[in-house]
């Protein structure tokens, strides 16, 4: 009597395991039919291809951005790049340019007295004044 019950229990566990196994197998089989591996592989290939092309540009900056357009051809078992457009932006140069732009030489206003009744500009002696109404 007891052994019969145990046997039934084992049988139901085995049945459950088989069902779970079949379910998981079918689930994975469906998910494998997609393009995930192909896309991942192609993404990697594109990255490597781009790196190969960019490395052909001389004097790459330490930090910056590279814009590139190239014609790629298979020659002698290798991909050869014919770069017809390239722009290299160096981030350090940009920072330097910005520093220059902030120098006090440009756009600063000097405090002083401007007398519009005088014929000569007090700031620049010997030169014709811009405020001279008689054009002397």
């Amino acid at each position, binding site marked *: 009597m007891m052994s019969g019950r145990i046997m039934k229990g084992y049988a139901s566990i085995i049945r459950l395991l088989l069902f779970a196994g079949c379910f998981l197998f079918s689930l994975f089989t469906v998910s494998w*039919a*997609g*393009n995930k591996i*192909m896309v991942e592989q192609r993404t990697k290939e*594109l990255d490597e291809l781009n790196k190969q092309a*960019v490395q052909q540009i001389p004097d790459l900056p*330490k930090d910056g951005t*590279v814009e*590139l357009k190239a014609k790629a051809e*298979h020659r002698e078992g290798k991909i050869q790049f014919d770069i017809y457009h390239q722009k290299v932006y160096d981030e350090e140069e940009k920072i330097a340019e910005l520093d220059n732009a902030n120098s006090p030489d440009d756009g600063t206003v000097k405090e002083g007295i401007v007398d519009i009744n005088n014929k000569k500009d007090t700031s620049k002696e010997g030169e014709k004044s811009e405020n001279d109404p008689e054009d002397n």
Partner: protein
Amino acid sequence: MIPKIIRSLIVISVCVGVMAPSGWSGNKRIMTIRAAKVMAERAIVESIYGLKLRATEEVKDMIPASFEGSTETKTQAKIKGIKYEDIVYDQEKDIAKVTASVTLDTITNIDGKKMNLKNKVYRRVGFATSTPEMAGPIRALRAAELDAYKQLIKQIVGFTLESQTKVENYILKSDLVKTKVLATLYLAEVKDYGWDKYGDAYVKMVLNVSDISEILGEGIIDAGQIVEVEGQGAQEDDFKASRKSAKKK
């Protein structure tokens, strides 16, 4: 024992039961086979006359979910004498397979060049179904075919690469990489095709450059070269959901 009327009813119902399936089958079988014939014809035209292919691939920040690839093909030709060598119809799956062949002496290809085919037999296979649920493997096979065409063009004609790359501490980090292909292709031959255990399709294509040189009667650089590629195609887009959510954002 059984009344005559009941007996006759049983006989009628048995007859209807036997006759009905063929009556209900409708035009599905014919439509599927016809579609497979058209697919095989197109394959023949693509192989001999040629096709124009435009393809782009783009990936941002090297994230596979951002990968976008598209391939378009175009062909139009009038070819006489296509024969259907083998027609197989699977009623259970509603899938038809047609093998078509053609023998031509000469033809003017997609580039307007006259080719001397010397009565060589060109053979291609086409698959089709009228049941949308069964279309997955056939779609994957066509995707693999287009991928193979694209790879052949990439190897023979080349492609354009456009990119924006960030450099950090002398290390290259690709931000945006794009490839473009636009060319015509003819005389590509299918060597093998099928589906792997995951349901993904593959098509092996070959292009013999010296054969083309001989057929065109022109000297081609790299003559003697045999270009062999394997195209791949899937049934499902695993990144569909992530792309949809990215577009919504």
